[in-house]
């Protein structure tokens, strides 16, 4: 009903898609998946009958053709076994499901990162953003001020006890977002209105101030452990405001208040509260240029990723998202890599000046604050991150939500599956490519029957083509005069030595 025109789907949408155990392909609909399995994996290669399951095919092969089924056709090498009974999404072993989810996640993040890299990094932020951003970062006094504040905050944090501030505030601050998120996402069609309702209250003027604060104070909060998201967000608001105006801000008032008490300085807590919004902020603005989000995304992705994973587990949003999801989105980023971002070229070009200084400055600051953050920045600063590194890039963020190392560990496993899939698809492509010329060449050679039939219907023409193709044949042995045995006999190794003959006779 509502427009879902974004080229890249939510992570939940991707995770919710039914996928095929045998080839890891995903589908819009369970029905399509089942049809796919019947056609690709459970089809008898002798008689073309489509069975429902591997077991069924095995029985069929045994009874009808007296054959044993040893492997599932068209399956990934490690999935070709008959031991698991698969029907649609049923019967997939739990560990494989986990693996698949991990893989999807990594792909998603990777795609996100690439999108960011392709759209944002080369020229981050729109000119206006930069105008706002740049002077602030460039002024040494600001930097110093921030540094001082950061140090003060760090000290304060240490005094407060890192864990307590880090743990308590987020719980307060995030409890709400967490609660809000699932519901909003389930109701994603109605989401935009929801936002709008919040949009009015915060006027850009009132909150333009906070954002400026955020940028400077953001650092102090890194130590507590939630530093990363805030800083990212702190930067992003300025660029965001011009393009979006309303969206980012609605959340500021919302979340700004609860966290405040937990921190000594009122403006600072907001970052914590904002950590969720960036993630939420993405979905509602599908058509907005990526660039504006870019700085934000750098962090929102991190924050959003774990959150997304956590929220994905409830599975409630799945059915809803299936509908809205379009098939192509998922495949593109993971296979073709950086080149797969169709939106990038169409975007307005932005001055490349702004981003680097920002990043560098922040990088420096982050460096003092938290290593994790620095890591993120390093990754972000590389325009085209390598697939695996980029996926790892998010791991640092994961701990926030409590998905600690498992991500990084499984990332490698997932990437290996990726390899399998990509190689399989490549092979398929190669096969297809090989077939095409073959198919093309014989046609001319076969004598084209005089066009006796007048304009046949389309299907008739197709059938005719088929017949013609069927006539194209290739003899494995085509020498019509000399038999294979004679040729073999002429081979040196079978040569008969007459000398032996004389000896014997």
């Amino acid at each position: 009903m509502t427009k879902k025109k974004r080229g890249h789907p939510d992570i939940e949408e991707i995770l919710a898609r039914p996928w095929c155990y045998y080839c890891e392909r995903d589908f819009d609909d369970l029905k399509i998946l089942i049809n796919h399995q019947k056609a690709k994996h459970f089809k008898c290669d002798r008689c073309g009958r489509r069975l429902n399951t591997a077991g069924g095919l095995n029985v069929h092969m045994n009874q009808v053709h007296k054959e044993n089924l040893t492997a599932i056709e068209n399956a990934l090498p490690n999935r070709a076994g008959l031991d698991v009974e698969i029907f649609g999404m049923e019967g997939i072993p739990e560990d494989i499901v986990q693996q698949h989810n991990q893989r999807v996640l990594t792909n998603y993040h990777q795609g996100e990162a690439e999108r960011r890299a392709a759209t944002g990094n080369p020229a981050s932020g729109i000119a206006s953003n930069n105008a706002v951003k740049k002077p602030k970062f460039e002024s040494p006094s600001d930097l110093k001020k921030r540094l001082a504040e950061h140090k003060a905050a760090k000290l304060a944090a240490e005094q407060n006890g890192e864990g307590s501030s880090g743990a308590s505030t987020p719980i307060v601050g995030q409890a709400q977002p967490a609660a809000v998120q699932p519901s909003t996402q389930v109701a994603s069609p109605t989401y935009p209105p929801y936002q709008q309702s919040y949009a009015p209250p915060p006027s850009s003027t009132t909150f333009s101030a906070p954002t400026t604060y955020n940028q400077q104070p953001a650092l102090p909060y890194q130590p507590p452990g939630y530093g990363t998201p805030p800083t990212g967000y702190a930067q992003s608001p300025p660029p965001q405001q011009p393009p979006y105006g309303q969206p980012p801000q609605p959340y500021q008032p919302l979340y700004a208040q609860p966290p405040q008490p937990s921190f000594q300085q009122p403006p600072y807590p907001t970052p914590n509260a904002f950590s969720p919004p960036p993630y939420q902020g993405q979905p509602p603005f599908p058509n907005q240029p990526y660039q504006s989000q870019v700085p934000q995304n750098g962090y929102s992705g991190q924050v959003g990723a774990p959150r997304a994973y956590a929220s994905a587990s409830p599975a409630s949003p799945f059915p809803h998202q299936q509908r809205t999801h379009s098939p192509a989105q998922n495949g593109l980023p993971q296979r073709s890599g950086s080149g797969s971002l169709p939106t990038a070229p169409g975007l307005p070009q932005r001055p490349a000046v702004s981003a680097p200084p920002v990043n560098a400055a922040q990088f420096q600051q982050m460096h003092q604050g938290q290593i994790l953050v620095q890591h993120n920045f390093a990754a972000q600063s590389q325009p085209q991150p390598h697939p695996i590194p980029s996926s790892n890039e998010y791991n640092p963020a994961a701990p926030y939500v409590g998905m600690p190392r498992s991500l990084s560990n499984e990332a490698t496993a997932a990437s290996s599956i990726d390899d399998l899939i990509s190689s399989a698809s490549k092979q398929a492509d190669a096969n297809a490519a090989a077939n095409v010329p073959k198919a093309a060449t014989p046609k001319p050679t076969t004598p084209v029957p005089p066009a006796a039939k007048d304009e046949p219907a389309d299907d008739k023409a197709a059938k005719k083509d088929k017949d013609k193709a069927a006539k194209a044949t290739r003899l494995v042995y085509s020498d019509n005069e000399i038999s294979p045995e004679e040729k073999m006999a002429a081979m040196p190794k079978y040569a008969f030595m007459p000398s032996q003959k004389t000896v014997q006779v």
Partner: protein
Amino acid sequence: MSNQYEVSEPPTDAISAIRFSPYADSHKFVVASWDKFAYLYEISDNKQCTLLNRFEHRAPVLDACFGKDDNEIFTACLDCDVRRIDVATSTQDVLSTHDAGVRSVAYSKEHSLLISAAWDSTLHIHPTSADAEWSTATITLPSKPFSLSMSPSKLVVAMSNRALHIYELSTLAEECKNTANALQNRLDIEPWQRRESSLKFMTRAVDCMPNDEGYASSSIEGRVAVEWFDPSTESQARKYAFKCHRQPEGEVDVVYPVNAIAFHPIHGTFATGGGDGVVAIWDAIAKRRIRIYPKLASSIAAMSFTSNGKILATAISPGFEDGKEDMAEGSVAILIRELGENEVKRKAK
């Protein structure tokens, strides 16, 4: 599958022929191989196949068949010799020597004749009974013979240039006796029938129906023709040919030669074995395929049914294909398949 197993000691090189003993209750079979040996195997009841003996030749053995009993084997060798092997003593006698490699041998127990065909375009007819008053007779053929098959009364010789001769064995035996002392034992005999193969490509194999009514021939172009001996127009109208042993690859059909044909001695159905490694069972009368077996590791080289029709032996070897200097790598094996009661039986209508 459990009812199919491999012979444990297969020949070390490509197999050229496999032939079961035609005698009742015998489960012996002889195998001719390019490794210069002829092998004699026996299948025992408990699914064991043992190598009884093997006989060395000077050159690759291209064909082999049993003689008057399981103790007598004839072989066709690339060294131009036709040999008789006494199994008990392992002694070999050279019956005759052609001017080129000998492609096939066939023995008629009804007439005690051994007929060999060689690439010098000749047939040699050997008397095998000790009291024969004549020695080997030679028939000159118009082309190189590629395959030989014998029914109780007929001899079918398939040659290059799509030529095909059908001889009556009784006439041959008679003529041989009459011209026993003719010059050089040349036999100038007109075949009972001269035919042109109904297939457009080189004939690969031919086998006669056990009921003596006709024969089936196959070509290198994945096609099999079934024809009847009876020259009457009604019978000739019954002949037909069909395509088989083809595999679509993309939009091109890859066509494999049909290397072997074997009629079932009881049911009258026949098996074809192709270069694609597939064995198919056909009903010649109903023009139906009864069964197709899973693709084997390499090209089917030869096939044979036991006399009681309960076992099918299939020899596989790497095929000699177009554009290959050398023979393709591939496994050489002999597969013994115990046939179920109705496995190759013609289906009731």
